[in-house]
């Protein structure tokens, strides 16, 4: 068995795939979120610091004089625009560290954040913005109530920005302030490292755990496979031994129920084959014994005639038996081979009974038919005729002379009902449940030599069942038996049928 093709492997693979996608999405999301938060807080710090620096007018002077005390690693620089270019005043800002386009943009009023890696390999986060130191309190540059936007106010000689803030000097200045990113990057790197180990590790552990769980969950299936493999068609008595109330328990119970049915079917089939072979061998035994006995020595013509008569009789009995076996096999084959016609059961029964009249007469039995109501059914006429003939023949055979056999047809609800009642010897209660079994004979009195093959009633039942009907029997010793055939009515003409007697 290939492991890769097992449910275990496929289940684990799918589950790992889903888990991996989820974990990677989660880890990526976490990484992005933490990064954004950390960089955001650095940027917020820079903006805040820029604001702080703006409250000191003389920061550039302090820097120029080397008296500025910044935070650890902090870089502060001022770019003052001159005729020639920029005059840079900085703590230890490397001249070429910043791309001048950012500074130009800042002069245009567009502040920006830039991450720069210095030649020493240090990462710095820059905030580049116009430097607008705040005026001291009470300055006339403070915009009065109701002042118009864009109006330049303030004492002469003092430039006022569009927002109304006084500029520290006539020269436009850009502040570039930077914080080292070491800690943020270290934190991000640690996070990345953790995630890169944690995600595969989680997947690995999940794979192991998943495999273990699936194997545990599927172990009963392996046992079931082993158990069913041991069951062969010759020995269907074994069962799958799994007793639980879960899905697998249900599967096992279903399997066992199926085995029960199979075993019963096989046993019936085997019994039938045994019986059939026995029944066929019996006449054959007589034929062979009789013939070989006759041939042992010269005999009189009368002896030969006797032997040949016995052989002929046995041959015809075999013929009947084979005919019945074929009928049974065809009937077992089901509806496919049926030739369904729509007809009146009452008429069919009446014809059949009329045909049986000579048999009844010979046996000294009165045969009566009562079928006033018409009963429309859809049946194979040949087969149903056979059922009726079999039942009537049986009734006549087991009814002593001067007895009566009655056939009656009527409708009841959605069923057409045909009953065959006799005043015969009856069937013992202990035999009653078995009389429809193949080759079952009631006692010695009804053995093969009396003409019964033990198949007649089995054939009747089989035919009636293929017509979706039922065949039942009630019987009382020395009083008589009644066989009842129920067939579904067709075409909803039962009402008309029920009315007919009053019309006629």
């Amino acid at each position: 068995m290939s492991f890769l093709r097992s449910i275990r492997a496929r289940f684990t693979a799918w589950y790992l795939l889903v888990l991996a996608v989820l974990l990677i999405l989660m880890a990526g999301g976490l990484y992005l979120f933490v990064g954004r938060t950390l960089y955001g807080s650095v940027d917020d710090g820079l903006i805040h610091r820029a604001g702080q620096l703006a409250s000191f007018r003389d920061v550039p002077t302090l820097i120029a004089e080397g008296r500025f005390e910044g935070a650890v690693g902090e870089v502060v620089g001022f770019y003052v625009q001159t005729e020639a270019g920029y005059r840079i005043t900085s703590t230890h800002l490397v001249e070429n560290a910043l791309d001048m386009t950012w500074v130009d943009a800042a002069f245009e009023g567009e502040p920006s954040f830039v991450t720069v890696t210095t030649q020493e390999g240090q990462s710095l986060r820059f905030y580049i913005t116009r430097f607008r130191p705040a005026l001291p309190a009470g300055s006339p540059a403070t915009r009065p109530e109701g002042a118009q936007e864009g109006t330049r106010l303030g004492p002469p000689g003092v430039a006022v920005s569009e927002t109304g803030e006084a500029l520290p000097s006539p020269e436009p200045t850009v502040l570039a302030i930077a914080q080292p990113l070491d800690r943020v990057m270290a934190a991000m790197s640690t996070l990345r490292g953790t995630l890169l180990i944690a995600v595969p590790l989680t997947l690995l552990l999940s794979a192991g755990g998943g495999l273990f769980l699936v194997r545990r969950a599927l172990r009963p299936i392996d046992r079931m496979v082993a158990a069913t493999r041991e069951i062969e068609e010759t020995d269907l008595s074994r069962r799958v031994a799994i007793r639980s109330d879960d899905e697998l328990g249900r599967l096992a119970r279903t399997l066992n129920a199926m085995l029960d049915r199979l075993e019963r079917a096989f046993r019936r089939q085997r019994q039938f084959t045994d019986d059939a072979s026995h029944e066929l061998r019996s006449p054959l035994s007589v034929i062979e014994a009789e013939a070989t006995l006759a041939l042992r020595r010269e005999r009189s013509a009368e002896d030969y005639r006797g032997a040949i008569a016995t052989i002929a009789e046995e041959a015809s009995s075999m013929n009947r038996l084979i005919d019945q076996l074929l009928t049974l096999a065809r009937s077992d084959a089901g509806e496919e081979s049926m030739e369904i016609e729509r007809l009146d059961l009452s008429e069919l029964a009446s014809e059949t009974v009329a045909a049986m009249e000579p048999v009844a007469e010979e046996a000294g039995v009165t045969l009566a038919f009562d079928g006033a109501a018409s009963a429309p059914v859809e049946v194979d006429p040949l087969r149903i005729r056979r059922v009726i003939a079999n039942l009537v023949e049986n009734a006549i055979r087991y009814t002593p002379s001067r007895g009566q056999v009655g056939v009656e047809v009527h409708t009841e609800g959605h069923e057409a009902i045909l009953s065959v009642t006799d005043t015969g010897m009856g069937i013992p209660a202990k035999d009653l449940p078995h009389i429809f079994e193949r080759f079952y004979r009631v006692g010695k009195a009804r053995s093969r030599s009396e003409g019964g093959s033990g198949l007649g009633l089995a054939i009747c039942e089989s035919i009636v069942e293929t017509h979706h009907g039922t065949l039942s029997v009630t019987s009382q010793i020395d009083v008589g038996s009644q066989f009842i055939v129920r067939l579904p009515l067709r075409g909803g003409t039962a009402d008309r049928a029920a009315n007919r007697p009053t019309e006629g």
Partner: protein
Amino acid sequence: MRILVVDDDVRLCSVISRGLTEEGYAVDVAHDGEEGQYLAETHAYDLIVLDIMMPKADGVTVCRNLRAEQSEAPILMLTAKDAVADRVVGLDAGADDYLVKPFAFEELVARVRALTRRQAPSRSAVLVSGNLELDTVARRLRRDGEEIELTAKEYAVIEYFLRNPTALITRGMIEEHAWNNDFDSVSNLVDVYIRKLRAKIDIPDEPSVIETVRGAGYRLRAV
């Protein structure tokens, strides 16, 4: 030799019975297991032919019961089942041999002969006593090499004597083994057959081969 045939098939019983009677055996017939067992228990049969599939009690059960009751008559099973397991069941139940249906009559007779021979003190197919020689296969009796014509019944009686050469044989024993149940034991039929046999077998003016034991029965004359 007396044989019981037990089979529910009346016609088959009739053929077997007719054929075996023709062979000189006395044959009784039973049509179900219970009847067969009753007959086997109440008569000393030399052989029982027993069908397996029968109403009331099947052949295997009857066979087992008889063996449990120390009945030693050889049993020949007739079976329509030829699966090995079925044959084994029959033999294990105490049957001595089996015959699968359908069978040729010759085979049945041969097996019957073999089984009855097995039972007798002498296992040879030819029984010898003095100048008498009985071929149980050809069913011929010779005296000094000269064949003596016998009827089936005469043959059955002399065979019984030759199979039990030293025993005292009562009229009842002869009746038991040479006649079936239809025989009326009040008649002096046994004496009639002994007389017929003596007339055919004995050499004139010599003591009879079959001695009369006064008040008891007969015995084969010791050689």
